[in-house]
C-alpha cells in the first residue's frame, strides 16, 4: 500500500498541471481569438474521437503492431550487437564509430530508400523502426558491459573465472540495469518512428491518419490521433518501468523525495 500511496503522491502534481493546461486551452478556444480550424478545443477533439472511435482503433492497432515489431527487433539487434562488440576483440573499436556515424543520417532520408528497396509492405516500416531503436540500446548495454565494479572484476579474476563466466555472471547482469535506460529511450523512439514510417505511402496507422486529417482540414481528427499517440508512448514507457521493477528487485529501495 505504501508504494501505491507514494506513487499517487508523485503522480498528482504533473496531472494537476496537465489539467490546468487543458482548461486554459479550452478557455482560449471558447472565449479567445484562436481559430477553430487551426486549433480545435479539447472537448471538440474528444467529441470527434468518440464519433470515429472504431476507425481510430483500427489505425491504432496497425500502429501498435508496427511499434511493437520494430521495438522488439530493435531491442534484439541492439542487445546482440552490444554483446558482439564487447566480446569480439577489436570489433568494438572498428565498428562503434561507424554506428555513431549511422545515427547522423536522418530517418526521413532512410525511409524512401527502404521503400524503394522493399516496397510498401510492413517489412520496410518495421526495419525503419528497428534502425531507430537499436542504437540507444547498444550504447546503454555497452557502457554497462564494460563498467562493472573494478573490485568485483578483480575478485573474480583472482579466483580464476573464465572469460565466458565473467560475461554471464558479472558483465551481463550488471549491464541489465543500463539496458533498461536504453529500453526506455528506445520505447519513445519506437512510437515516433512508427508514426514517421506510416507517412510513407500507406493509409493504415495513426501516422497516416493524422497526415490525411490535417491535409483534409479536419484538425480535430488529427489531434485525436495525437492524443492516442501520446498515450501509446506513455503506456509503452510505463510497461518498461514496470518490467524494470520486476527484474531488478535486488536493488535497495530508494526513498521517494
Amino acid at each position: 500500500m505504501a508504494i501505491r500511496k507514494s506513487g499517487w503522491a508523485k503522480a498528482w502534481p504533473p496531472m494537476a498541471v496537465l489539467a490546468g493546461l487543458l482548461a486554459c486551452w479550452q478557455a482560449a478556444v471558447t472565449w479567445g481569438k484562436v481559430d477553430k480550424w487551426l486549433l480545435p478545443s479539447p472537448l471538440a477533439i474528444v467529441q470527434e474521437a468518440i464519433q470515429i472511435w472504431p476507425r481510430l482503433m483500427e489505425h491504432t492497432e496497425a500502429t501498435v503492431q508496427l511499434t511493437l515489431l520494430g521495438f522488439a527487433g530493435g531491442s534484439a539487434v541492439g542487445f546482440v550487437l552490444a554483446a558482439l562488440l564487447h566480446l569480439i576483440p577489436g570489433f568494438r573499436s572498428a565498428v562503434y564509430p561507424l554506428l555513431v556515424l549511422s545515427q547522423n543520417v536522418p530517418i526521413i532520408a532512410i525511409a524512401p530508400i527502404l521503400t524503394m528497396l522493399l516496397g510498401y509492405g510492413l517489412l520496410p516500416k518495421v526495419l525503419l523502426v528497428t534502425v531507430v531503436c537499436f542504437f540507444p540500446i547498444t550504447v546503454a548495454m555497452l557502457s554497462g558491459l564494460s563498467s562493472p565494479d573494478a573490485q568485483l572484476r578483480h575478485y573474480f579474476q583472482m579466483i580464476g573465472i573464465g572469460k565466458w563466466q565473467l560475461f554471464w555472471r558479472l558483465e551481463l547482469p550488471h549491464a541489465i540495469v543500463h539496458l533498461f535506460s536504453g529500453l526506455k529511450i528506445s520505447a519513445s523512439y519506437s512510437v515516433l518512428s512508427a508514426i514517421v514510417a506510416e507517412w510513407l505511402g500507406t493509409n493504415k496507422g495513426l501516422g497516416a491518419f493524422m497526415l490525411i486529417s490535417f491535409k483534409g482540414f479536419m484538425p480535430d481528427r488529427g489531434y485525436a490521433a495525437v492524443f492516442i499517440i501520446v498515450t501509446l508512448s506513455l503506456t509503452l514507457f510505463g510497461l518498461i518501468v514496470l518490467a524494470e521493477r520486476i527484474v531488478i528487485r535486488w536493488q535497495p529501495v530508494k526513498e521517494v523525495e
Partner: protein
Amino acid sequence: MSDKASIHAMTTLQVRGIRKSFGKRAARKEVLGGLSLSVADGEFVSIVGPSGSGKTTLFKVIGGLEQPSEGEIWVEGKQTTGERGHISYMPQQSALLPWQSVAGNIELSLAISGLDRKAAKLKTKEWLERIGLDDYADAYPHMLSGGMLQRVSFLRALLAPQRLMLLDEPFGALDALTRLQMQQWLMSIWDQNRRSVLLVTHSIEEALFLSDRIIVLSASPAVVLEEFVVPFERPRSEALWTNPLFNELKQQIYELLKAGGKEANE
C-alpha cells in the same frame, strides 16, 4: 631432485625470487625486487609493509593476474606461475554481487573454484548456520552490515577447495571495534578449519594476534626485510595485548618498518 619435491609437498606456497616491473624504458619502475617467501601447510603468515610497497601486486602475481618479470610461483608442489584458479581470495571490499543473495554469492564462487553445485549448496548452508548467518542466506548484500559482509566474504574464501587463502587487508574498511571482533571471529573459525593463509595487513597488532609468522617487506622495490616467528600459544585471547613479549615484537617490527621506509625514500 626427490628431496626438493618432498619439500614442495609440505609447503602450500613458494614464492621464489619474484621480480615485477611496470612501465617501459625511462618510466620503468621495479615494484617487487626479487621476493622469496613460503607458507607451510596449515600455516598463518602475515605480510606487513609500507603503503605502496607492492603487496597487492604480489597477490596479483600469485593469483596469476600478473606475469612476473622474473621468478616462479609454486602452489601445492606445482609450478603455477601466471596460472589462475589455484588460490582462494578475500579482498578488502567484500566484493559480493549485488544481484545475488548471500547464499547465491557463496555458491557461485565455490562453483567457479571448482566445487560441484550440489556440494557447494550443502557446504554453504551448513556453514552459514555455523556462523549464525542462516537468517541472511536469502538476503541481498545491501541488507547486511559491513562486518557481516566481511564474514560472508571470508566464509566464501574459506570454503573454496584450494588450500591457500590470500587475504588482502580484509578488515581495512571496518571500524576499530568491529575489526577486533572480526579478528577473534576469524581466529576461531580458522581454528576449526585450518588452511594455509597469507594475510596482508597494515596493523602490526593484527598480524601478531593472528599469525604464526610475520614477514616484513621494505618499501618498493619490495624485498623481505625480516621474518618474525610469533611464539604465542593458540587459542589466543585478548590477554595477549598486555603481554610484554607482544609489545616488544610490536616495537621491533614498527622500528623496522620505519627504517625500511626511510631507506627507500632517500
